[in-house]
């Protein structure tokens, strides 16, 4: 494969700006095409997808702000594809890949990647990754915290040709269609992903026509270099030093003990070393994190703690060294299962942010929820009668900071997945959502309060359904931490009520069958507080009280205990 780079071309500053802005806007436009033509609520309502543009060697050069977990990872898929297909790549091809040990994150995130050729040379790639609700496997919704091997996590695809020279590849399409539970949505969304890539390809071709290929390629190089310079400058502006922090997963996914995540940061001049080797060995369950996702977590934390407004690409990786031996749960050996890796990623992101807060106290923030409640519920659409799987994610409170209170009921850290509208959920799945409300008293107090967690109740309708549910941060020893003297948020809680309304005890990660009339209740954690509670202004406190944010009043229609004792922080702390 002959690849071209932009070495040696002079690039006027204004042209560079025009090209880089146009590539960014191409990524935004790709996202619009995917979202607006998708068939799956997880894509069209919850925005669990990302789009980007890559240089010919696979380095990510332009992205819009989609899901940090996906953006930080995608270039490894492209690099793997280049390694695998080399000179066989042809114009009009579109590759499909999801192999967690070949650069991808977990099997439900399907990557579709297209090459961009100009004058017979490969000059760039456009790519999308989207969470598909089900890619087969033993569980509806594919994911399962207790799965033990990647082979159980549905269809595993190294980079294969979904399209060959502009035509759909029937072999791959029929393999996918036979392996997944809702082939109609999966195939439609794959076509939408490829259409999004095509839009990106045309935008790049147009730019080359306007500015010439050499300038376009020089712009790719300069985009990476300028991000590298910006990150180095941001790092250089911060004090040198070393810090560490630890965080714990509630368990190993199969009911085992808490698992340690450890991060040590060493910042010297304009470089940063991130040492994760103090983390626990890989797990028997599916909370392991493939390398792409570990790298994405570090990239996310670095941007958030330096300059969140800075546009990024793979240039951010250059001043960064990540140390994590093979066999650690953040860099597992195959065939360890990884489908629920995102819960671990969130805990890792929180640990990195806390370590950075130690290193740079003026940037300290309280912790956000990492409960990341996820649910895959086998279902039938009341409107179309077709069987499907409902995938749901519920956010919670974010941490308070020196400038103000945290946010209520949102996704946190490396994800920014939306809450499914009730009117969408009930139209597409045989479920009724009985309530979605803030949980008073769930946030850490302080001069600034954390954001409140969410309570959402799901009632299964019509027929028994298999469900996989998982929530982190249910262990009261590991709640969202306060900062600068602020209090901790409350832990999260997963509850189940039978058709008769009687509570049934459930573990925080479980696959089971629910009878019609059963109610699943998730209560996510609130964010940590910031600063001493005695410093909170009286007006703010009065408003909190009037708005019922502080404590839960007893509810007449509450079918479970309304009050919970707040747990005192114990066990986990930032180590110095």
């Amino acid at each position, binding site marked *: 494969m002959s690849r071209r780079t932009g070495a040696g071309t002079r690039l006027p500053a204004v042209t560079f700006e*025009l090209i880089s802005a146009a590539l960014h806007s191409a990524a935004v436009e790709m996202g619009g*095409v995917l979202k607006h033509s998708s068939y799956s609520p997880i894509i*069209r309502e919850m925005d669990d997808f990302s789009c980007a543009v890559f240089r010919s060697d696979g380095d990510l050069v332009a992205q819009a702000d989609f899901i940090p977990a996906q953006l930080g990872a995608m270039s490894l898929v492209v690099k793997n594809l280049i390694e695998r297909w080399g000179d066989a790549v042809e114009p009009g091809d579109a590759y499909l890949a999801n192999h967690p040990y070949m650069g991808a994150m977990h099997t439900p995130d399907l990557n579709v990647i297209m090459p961009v050729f100009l004058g017979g040379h490969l000059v760039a790639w456009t790519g999308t990754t989207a969470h598909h609700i089900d890619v087969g496997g033993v569980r509806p919704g594919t994911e399962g915290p207790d799965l033990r091997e990647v082979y159980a996590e549905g269809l595993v695809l190294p980079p294969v040709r979904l399209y060959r020279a502009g035509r759909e590849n029937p072999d791959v399409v029929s393999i996918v269609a036979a392996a997944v539970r809702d082939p109609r949505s999966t195939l439609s969304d794959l076509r939408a992903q490829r*259409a999004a890539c095509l839009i990106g390809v045309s935008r790049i071709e147009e730019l080359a026509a306007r500015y010439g290929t050499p300038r376009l390629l020089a712009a790719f190089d300069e985009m990476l270099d300028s991000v590298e310079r910006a990150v180095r400058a941001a790092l250089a502006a911060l004090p040198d030093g070393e810090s560490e922090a630890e965080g714990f997963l509630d368990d190993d996914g199969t009911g085992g003990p808490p698992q340690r995540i450890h991060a040590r940061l060493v910042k010297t001049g304009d470089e940063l070393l991130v040492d994760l080797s103090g983390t626990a060995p890989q797990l028997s369950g599916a909370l392991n994190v493939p390398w792409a996702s570990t790298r994405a977590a570090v990239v996310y934390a670095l941007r958030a703690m330096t300059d969140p407004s800075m546009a990024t690409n793979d240039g951010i990786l250059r001043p960064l060294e990540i140390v994590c031996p093979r066999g650690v749960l953040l860099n597992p050996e195959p065939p360890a299962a990884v489908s629920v890796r995102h819960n671990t990623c969130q805990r890792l992101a929180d640990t990195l942010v806390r370590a950075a807060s130690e290193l740079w106290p003026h940037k300290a*923030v309280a912790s956000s929820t990492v409960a990341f409640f996820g649910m895959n519920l086998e279902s039938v659409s009341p409107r179309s009668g077709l069987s499907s799987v409902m995938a749901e994610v519920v956010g919670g409170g974010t941490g308070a900071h020196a400038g103000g209170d945290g946010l209520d009921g949102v996704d946190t850290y490396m994800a920014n997945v939306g809450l499914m509208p009730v009117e969408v959920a009930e139209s597409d799945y045989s479920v009724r959502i009985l*309530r979605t409300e803030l949980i008073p008293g769930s946030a850490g107090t302080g001069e600034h309060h954390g954001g409140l967690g969410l309570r959402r109740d799901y009632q299964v309708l019509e027929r028994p359904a298999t469900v996989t549910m998982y929530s982190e941060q249910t262990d009261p020893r590991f709640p969202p931490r306060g900062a600068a003297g602020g209090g901790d948020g409350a832990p999260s809680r997963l509850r189940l009520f039978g058709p008769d309304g009687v509570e049934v005890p459930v573990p925080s990660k479980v696959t089971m069958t629910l009878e019609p009339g059963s109610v699943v209740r998730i209560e996510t954690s609130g964010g940590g507080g910031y600063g001493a509670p005695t410093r909170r202004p009286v007006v703010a406190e009065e408003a909190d009280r009037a708005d019922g944010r502080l404590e839960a009043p007893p509810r007449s229609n509450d079918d479970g205990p309304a009050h919970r004792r707040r747990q005192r922080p114990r066990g986990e702390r930032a180590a110095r």
Partner: protein
Amino acid sequence: MRPGRFLVAVDVGGTFTDAVAVSAAGGTLVAKVPSTPEDPAIAFEEALAELERAGLPLGSAHLVFHGTTVATNAMLTGRLARVVLVTTEGFGDVLSYRNGTRPSVYDLQQPRPGELVARRDRVEARERLSSTGEIVTALSEAEIARVVDEVAARRPEAVAVAFLFSYLDDRHEEQMAEALERRLGGVPVARSARLAREFREYPRTATAAVNAGLRPVVGRYLVSATSRLERLGVSGRLMIMQSNGGCVPAARADEEAHRLLLSGPAAGVAGTVALGQEYGIERLVSFDMGGTSLDVCLVAHGTPPLTPTETIAGHPILCPSVDMVTIGAGGGSIAEVGPTGRLSVGPRSAGAQPGPAAYGRGGEEATVTDAHVVLGTLPTGLSLAGGLGLDLEAARKVVGRVGEEMGLSLEEAADGIVQVSVAQMSLALRRVSVERGIDPEGYTLVAFGGAGPLHAGLLLRELRFGSVLVPRYPGLFAAAGLVSTDLRVDESRTVLAPLTEEMLPALAGWLRSTAEEIRARLADDGVSGRPARLVASADCRYVGQGYELAVQISPLSEAALAELPERFAELHQRTYGHRDPEGTVEVVTLRLSAFGALPKARQEGVSPAGRSTASSAMVTTTSARLPGGAHRVGIPVYDRAALRSGHRFDGPAIVHQHDATTLVLDGQSARVDRRGSLWIEEVR
């Protein structure tokens, strides 16, 4: 329009209120008065009185067009009426968790978004519909009474009712709203499904809450404006500009208060569109910069782009709106030096009161206008709108203070303020052009508003637009744009079902009967004789998708409806690059828009130059330091009123007129055409 009759327009900006009257014969009268933000109706009346003094017989005003910022200001400053929100039980917090995402993905220190309704003012009602529209829990009389009591006890200024699935069946919303109206007397009650019959509870609830919060504010204002018209003896009807770029009679405007959020800015875009039609130019960028803010809109095919959802102050509002970018950069934007020594300009503005220090009305902070006065690009000693003179000493004092804080000389500080402000304008322009992959080179920048022409030359150089067009009355251009608008009525009906042959007669029937109703309403609203232009469309999608594409239906017939699936597939292919041969097409919403043509006035041009040259319009030479320049140079000042069609001159130059000042840079040239517009281009 009969001879002797006038079309009148009043456009309220953050700093000035402008008025224009155009006669059937083409004569134009103009007025400009300072805005009165605490009660905009005062300036509204003042502007009309000023027109009368300029020679307008107020009794001969046929229609009074009005672009108002009363809704926008209330929204941006958080001065909405206190709303109580009534929701389905279990969902009172929907305005807190919104759509569950963070506005900024990476910022760990972002502020908590403001809430439209305080948590203490949310009341939940026991009622429930299913996703197929069946009643799961009926809304009982006892529950209605309980909720009404709870709401009344909170003494709201307005109420919003938003129940789940009301877009399928709104009878619970209606029952609740009627009971609330009976109990609360004149308190407005917004119903979500009436305002936006669309699914997804968060944006629909937010729309209802915004509508409720605005109605008392807008209602009070319109009552005041209408009574002032009566007092002045104006019999012409008051027409209010909406966010979609069309007008409605004032009597209907407060019920649709959420549709006024872009009323002011839409007027300027309407002016740009009308100007484009006059010149036959399709690609324009509307650059409307007043004292407080800058509104930018890219007009690509002679029509302003519409977006189905407008987001203001972080809240989604479901109503078709002109798609534009607004930033807080105006002549009155205040310059501040932060703790780290960084200079920022805006979004805080000195507004109408006190205004820039140079206006001599007690302004104590340095503004962009003050910086120009210091640089000399806004020369003192020439008369300005509203009888203002410019106070150089006052400007030097406030800008000098900024310089001291930064360790810069007076003129360096002034230059810095202008450059920071221009960089912000440049970013706003990039967002509508470069960032959408559009090269400004093929576009004409239409610069207006009191401060637009002063910065247009700088942006021409920075972003390389094809050219700049400064209309004849830049400070009054938005007001003049109002005069060229049409009445607009939008009706819609939710269908939400796969298209079948059996449905066609009913759908065609709705289109025809609605067309009749709209015609009757337009006749009632003052459009008679000439037939209204009707545009029908259907929002379609494949079953399973969540977003729709609008497919045109023409004519309003069953045959045209039957073609929808094929037309949709073609549009899907064009828009997204693929189609689904096995997909079933469903119709989500049927829409009918009607445009009632209002009388148009002919605007007079300027006389030809003959043998005279532009130097005949040169009034003086002033000393000024151009932004980015190193020292002062002598710059000729032209009187815009004395410039004739065909005059040409080179920059650097300053063109002075009553309502705006135009700056032409060194290396740029300017010419005047027969309509009196000033064109600026780079000399290449």
